[in-house]
């Protein structure tokens, strides 16, 4: 079963980019603006917020993203893509993979 978050990027109401939430092994807030999703195959997707949203030790953005992931995974299999409105800003300024 594949599942995705549909994440608005660059500006509120802007284009949405699909981010996989299948095979997630770890979610980590790497900095005040960056949250990393680590997948089983070793790839990492990084979402970057336009403003500080917590810290690595008080990861407000990371916990918000995790809540969205769990909410999406709890929906039926026909809900393949679930819209995610990032904490406070409503969008992220960047999504990348490494």
């Amino acid at each position, binding site marked *: *079963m594949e*599942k995705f978050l549909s994440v608005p990027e660059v500006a509120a109401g802007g284009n949405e980019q699909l981010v996989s*939430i*299948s*095979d*997630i*092994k*770890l*979610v*980590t807030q790497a900095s005040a603006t960056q949250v990393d999703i*680590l*997948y*089983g*195959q*070793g790839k990492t997707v990084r979402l970057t917020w336009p403003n500080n949203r*917590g*810290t690595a*030790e*008080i*990861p*407000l953005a*990371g*916990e918000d993203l*995790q809540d969205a*992931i*769990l909410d999406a*995974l*709890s929906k039926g*299999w026909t809900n393949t893509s679930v819209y995610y409105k990032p904490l406070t800003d409503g969008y992220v300024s960047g999504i990348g993979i490494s």
Partner: protein
Amino acid sequence: MEMDKLLSVPVSSMVKSGATSGDGSSTLKLIDAGQTFTQEVLVGDYVYDTTTNSGTGGEFYKVSAIDSDTQLSLTSVGPATNPGVPSGATYYVFSGTSHILAAGTTTSTSANNLVMSSGTFVSGLTPVKIGDTVTNQTDATTATVTAVTNDTTLALSADIMANSELFIVTRETTLEYTQLLGASDIALTENVSTDAQNASITIRYGNASGVELTLQYIPDGIFAIGDETVRNAFQDYVIRANEQEWSQPSYPWAKPHVLNVTDNGTTDSAAAFALIESGQNFTSTVSVGNTAVKLSTSETATVTAVVSDTQLTLDRSIFVSGEAYQILGPNKNFLPVFNIATSAI
């Protein structure tokens, strides 16, 4: 249909890090001239010295006293007897049972209020709430927050703060956050073999090019090298997570506890509803309400009376003569996780 399962793991936040500037290695101290520990660290917080014995897992301590802004008193934690932190060691301090929400110096006097013009009591990352505790560090008095007026003012239950006094605002909970950890496609979980502190496990996932994660925890209450309490707890949580309905993608990690064994031995006589062993000292080691465990079957019974040094009364008849047992007191040591990552800190 395969569904991803995750564990929701509470992770203790790091409240401080640095490198020691003085030698505390023979006095159970941590010394760092550049710090203000009185406003950043609490008794009960944990210290991880990653430099000393780094090849076998570093050294762990619990903070027993805040001696000054630059010095902490410590007690050793874990299987090894650690002597204190030497000069030049890298260390981390993790939240224990309480945490500091705000700290600083008051900027005016207001009856029954705490005022700091640069405060962020509402908008800060750790907002203050009614019921939090204010400690005046200048004259060692305390009060409770009765209202959070705004970012710069707290109403207090007692008039303890005047202008230019040091304070901290604390809450009796661990500063921690939740981290999702994959519970599907796990190939093997193991204690780190080189870790003499028993403070980490590795989680290997099944994909050929997959990731390996290290989960680190404070070994508070673990006294034996090779103890697998956390590894076993992790495996148990993984099973429970995967047994859940598909609509429940995560399972909550509860901090594993260390069994509090207050006594043990082998019975040498038998009677109904009794545990008997000559030569014991039950009146010193056992209390009513403790649990007696028959090790051969893991059956348990509750102690209802301590009859003498050699005999206990139980609520069930589970012992005959010649059976090994343990007496367990209330759980008191929990094993908080402080890091989950692709590499250890």
